């Protein structure tokens, strides 16, 4: 692992001010494919102003229930997406992870997987969690492949959870336990 726990091989995780993130987020959100891969709320367009207000509210919260980061490339220090742990359950040692690479040019090149490896490292060695969970739609095989590479195991699927383009799709659930992650880390060291 690199000297900083927030740095991987391709990207680093940083915090950005609301106005900077709001501009990117609003622009990324105009790519409907991106937004429909990201979650199951109806796709909608968000102005820079509204996005900025959301993220300013997050500033006030500053709780320990989540850990949210912007993904920067090491090469050009450009913002390409975000990753975060949410719904952290301290009494059980579980968190949910969400990730999005908004810049299409960086899809399928390992940037997301690298960011996921950093956040798992953070979850298991700094937050000392026991497991990390995620949900992903079956129409997003690129993400599923990336999660498998980062160490996630398939745990089942909510049948026909999402209705899009007139078709029903499963939500695939994956999880990684600290013990499983430690074994992967050992062999990568």
């Amino acid at each position, binding site marked *: 692992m690199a000297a900083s726990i927030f740095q991987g091989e391709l990207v680093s995780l940083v915090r950005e001010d609301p106005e900077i993130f709001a501009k990117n987020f609003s622009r990324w959100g105009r790519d409907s494919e991106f937004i429909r891969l990201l979650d199951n709320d109806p796709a909608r367009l968000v102005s820079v102003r509204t996005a900025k207000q959301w993220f300013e509210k997050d500033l006030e919260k500053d709780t320990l229930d989540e850990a949210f980061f912007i993904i920067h490339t090491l090469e050009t220090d450009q913002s390409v997406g975000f990753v975060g742990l949410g719904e952290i359950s301290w009494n059980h040692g579980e968190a949910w992870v969400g990730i999005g690479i908004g810049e299409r040019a960086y899809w399928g090149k390992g940037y997301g997987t690298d960011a996921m490896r950093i956040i798992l490292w953070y979850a298991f060695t700094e937050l000392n969690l026991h*497991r990390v969970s995620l949900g992903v739609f079956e129409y997003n095989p690129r993400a599923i492949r990336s999660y498998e590479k980062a160490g996630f195991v398939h*745990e089942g*699927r*909510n049948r026909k959870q999402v209705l899009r383009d007139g078709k029903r799709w499963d939500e695939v659930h994956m999880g990684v336990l600290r013990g499983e992650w430690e074994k992967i880390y050992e062999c990568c060291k």
Partner: protein
Amino acid sequence: MDISTQLFEGKLICLAPIDHEKDPEIESKWTHDPDYLRMLSTKPARPLSPAQVKKKYEAVEKEMDESHSNFYFTIRAHPDERLVGFIKIYWVEWTNGNGFVELGIGDPNDRGHGYGSEALHLVLRYVFAELNLYRLSVVVPEYNQPALHLFTKAGFVEEVRRREALQRDGRYWDAIHLGLLREEWETQLKGT
């Protein structure tokens, strides 16, 4: 089953609104039983005073009013409509037609009498024939066998196991997700 078939009336129980005067005392007693809390919730068990329960009810009704994604019912036993539990639908996603259900029978002496089963039966009709959802999910801790039995009997199918997602009494337990689809519920109805 048609428009004259009552949605909220069963043989043993009925579904009714919250009674803000009388219910808080009763639910406060339930929350002093750690088993009840741990069967229902993954949050650290924490008893509530009647005033705290009252506040919770106000929050529940405010959310029902504003979000349109929550539906909360008390379960009351005939003939005197004594409060025995609650059942709620939450996280409804209208575009995808899905939601989650949660059910609790408060007093251990009221469990095993079919109250929960009948309440769930009524709510399934409400979910599929009034809200017109397509699927309903429930998440149950592995150690809550009575709940797993209840939902399986009602036709729910195990879909996901979040391995070791819960830590209680010094060991890990899975969180089990079950789901029921509209067509499965309809097939069941035809069979009865």
